């Protein structure tokens, strides 16, 4: 066992670092949170910049236009872009991190050709149409119907938590194609163009005040049968591939960011007056921060182990993703609570307050609550760990 990077890994890191130093100063200022067209333009422009430099789809296979980087190089990429303060994946999230990889693994050559190059170049934005008001944790009970009509499916139903729907070109959509089959066996995975007639989008406001979520109402939307990925009624298996990507690597960049924010909290603690000294002199608070830093170190080590296993294995992330997500979101909750305790009354402003860079910590305290719900709640993750890793029997339905 070792934790060393190879010479070629270090070369990759050095080149990437040098490139980031060159390009980041040229990036225009970030648009306003509510200006979705501008945000789309900003995020996709960064994606184009990545593409032109050969960094788009870093972990995608070469034969679909990706860089085909090893899992270790992928880790280095996430680490260095985060460290340099490069733009986050933003509206490209669904396309790059799960729809794209799912297409790469499951789609026909025509489907890959139609979408993957455009996703990589930042020309195509995707959203996710999986959850429904009546199908959250029990996703397989989804009821959005797709009825075959010649060479089209006619889709009617309602989707929710559809991130970036207002600016998306396509939607990865789960629909019920056989209402009589057992619930896992009547689902299909469709590529739905977002400019199809019959789609109505209603933005949802999150507790953080942001508007990336939507509800999506589908009324007789016609989707070509050739837009189906995988066989008819085999969509649940395809969705499992999507989940493995969603849970597998999507949080690595997050972890890097969180480790940096712990250091920022130390800086805030040193300059925060408390009990006649600084907050950093409070034994309890200081050790709690030490504890959280230790946990984040451990999660970094766990990531390195998952990466090694991915490198030796199939390339599709394994169940280690569930272990990581569960542990990471728990730490994030405790870190958020600790940050709020440290900020005290400064936490009552969602923006930076009196020169303290507190806004990001308040925002992330709220975001932690979404982490333990999105992409499979912590309770669902515990079921997965209990049943698929520990081999405990399912609770009978």
């Amino acid at each position, binding site marked *: *066992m*070792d*934790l*060393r*990077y*190879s010479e070629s*890994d270090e070369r990759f890191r050095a080149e990437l670092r040098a490139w980031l130093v060159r390009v980041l100063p040229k990036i225009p200022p970030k648009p306003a949170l509510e200006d979705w067209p501008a945000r789309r333009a900003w995020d996709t422009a960064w994606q184009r910049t990545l593409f032109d430099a050969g960094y788009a789809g870093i972990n995608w296979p070469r034969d679909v236009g990706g860089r085909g980087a090893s899992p*270790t190089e992928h*880790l280095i990429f996430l680490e260095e872009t985060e460290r340099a303060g490069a733009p986050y994946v933003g509206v490209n999230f669904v396309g790059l991190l799960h729809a794209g990889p799912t297409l790469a693994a499951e789609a026909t050559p025509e489907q890959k050709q139609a979408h993957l190059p455009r996703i990589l170049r930042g020309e195509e934005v995707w959203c996710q149409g999986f959850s429904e008001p009546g199908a959250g944790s029990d996703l397989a009970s989804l009821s959005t119907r797709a009825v075959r009509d010649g060479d089209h499916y006619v889709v009617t139903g309602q989707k929710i938590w559809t991130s970036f729907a207002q600016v998306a070109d396509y939607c990865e959509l789960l629909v019920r194609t056989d209402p009589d089959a057992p619930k896992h066996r009547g689902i299909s995975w469709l590529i739905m163009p977002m400019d199809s007639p019959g789609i109505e989008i209603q933005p949802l406001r999150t507790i953080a005040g942001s508007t990336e979520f939507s509800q999506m109402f589908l009324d007789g939307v016609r989707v070509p049968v050739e837009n189906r990925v995988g066989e008819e009624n085999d969509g649940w298996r395809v969705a499992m591939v999507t989940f493995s990507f969603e849970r597998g690597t999507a949080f690595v960049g997050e972890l890097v960011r969180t480790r940096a924010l*712990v*250091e920022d909290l*130390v800086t805030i603690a*040193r300059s925060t007056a408390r009990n006649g000294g600084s907050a*950093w002199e409070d*034994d309890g608070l*200081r*050790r*709690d*921060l*030490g*504890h959280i*830093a*230790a*946990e984040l*170190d*451990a*999660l*970094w*080590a*766990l990531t*390195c*182990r998952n*990466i*090694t*296993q991915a*490198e*030796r294995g199939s390339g599709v992330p394994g169940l280690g993703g569930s*272990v990581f997500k*569960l*542990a990471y979101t728990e730490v994030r909750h405790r870190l958020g609570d600790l940050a709020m305790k440290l900020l005290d009354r400064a936490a009552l402003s969602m923006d930076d307050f009196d020169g303290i860079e507190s806004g990001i910590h308040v925002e992330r305290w709220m975001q932690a609550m979404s982490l333990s719900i999105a992409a499979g709640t912590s*309770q669902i*993750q*515990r*079921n997965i*760990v*209990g*049943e698929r*890793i*520990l*081999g*405990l*029997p*399912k*609770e*009978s339905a």
Partner: protein
Amino acid sequence: MNFDLDDGERALQQGIRDVCKRLFPIDRVRALEAEPGGLDRKLWRELGDAGVFALRLPEPDGVGLGVTQAVLVFEELGHAIVPGSLISTHLAAGIVDGASTGDRIVGMLERNRTPRLVGHLEAADDLVVVDSEGLWLIDPASVKGRPVPRPLDPLTPMHAVDDLPQGERLAGGEEAARWRLDGAALVAAMQVGIAASCVEQAVAYAKERKQFGRVIGSFQAVKHICADMLIRAEVARAAVYAAGVMLDDPSSGNAPRAVAGARLLAAEAAVANGKANIQVHGGMGYTWEIDAHLYLKRAMLLQTRFGRNDEWAEEVARTLA
């Protein structure tokens, strides 16, 4: 990056696992309670033959491996709750004659840690006392101690030490600091072994115990306890393996910080999983007859070795400043 066991490490892990199964099945471990000093010299010798103590001594006298591999061995010893002064004898190899072969049992004491308690005193051939000035060798016969009538861990007899001689100087402060760091990594490895063993015991019981007409492991309330146990063990294990690697190769990270974090998380995982295992076992888990309490009690004992949790949390915090 190769942060997973290679073939040699897997073979080493399997080898020590087999040794533990053969020499230390839980009934044999429980029977050691009746031995003087709580140890069996023949078994100790066999651990020596298996290379447990000479593991990190250079060849030809030792096996020539690093902390990276030692944590795998001590994880298995913890998993089997093998009792005795395993870590101190391992650390004393190459410093105290006869330690590396298993011919002599080397106990240890932290001089400035109170109350001053030492385990397995009657079985010890040598005692190493650790303080900030260095390592000191003491003849156990020269130590005045009172037996603790009812030790928390029944498999670790304890003495309270009233009078501790200064002893013969073995090494200086720098070596003492390294002793503490390596020792903390090995304790953490044993704690991970306990945490992992508790997951296995709880899961096995949850798969067979029936209530309300079905096995209790099918209930989410029980399943989620087991899942949390696994998470704690896995996170702590990753931390401990990383600490081992960094102790061997300081260029790959901040080793003292990694050891501190690993020791902290592993201690918590062992105690929390020890308790959860009893909870999953229900009323039977609260009986002396069922083994579950032995793992929890050993976890509590190990938590008090090589520093306290709050000291290690402090040590991690110091690296943030």
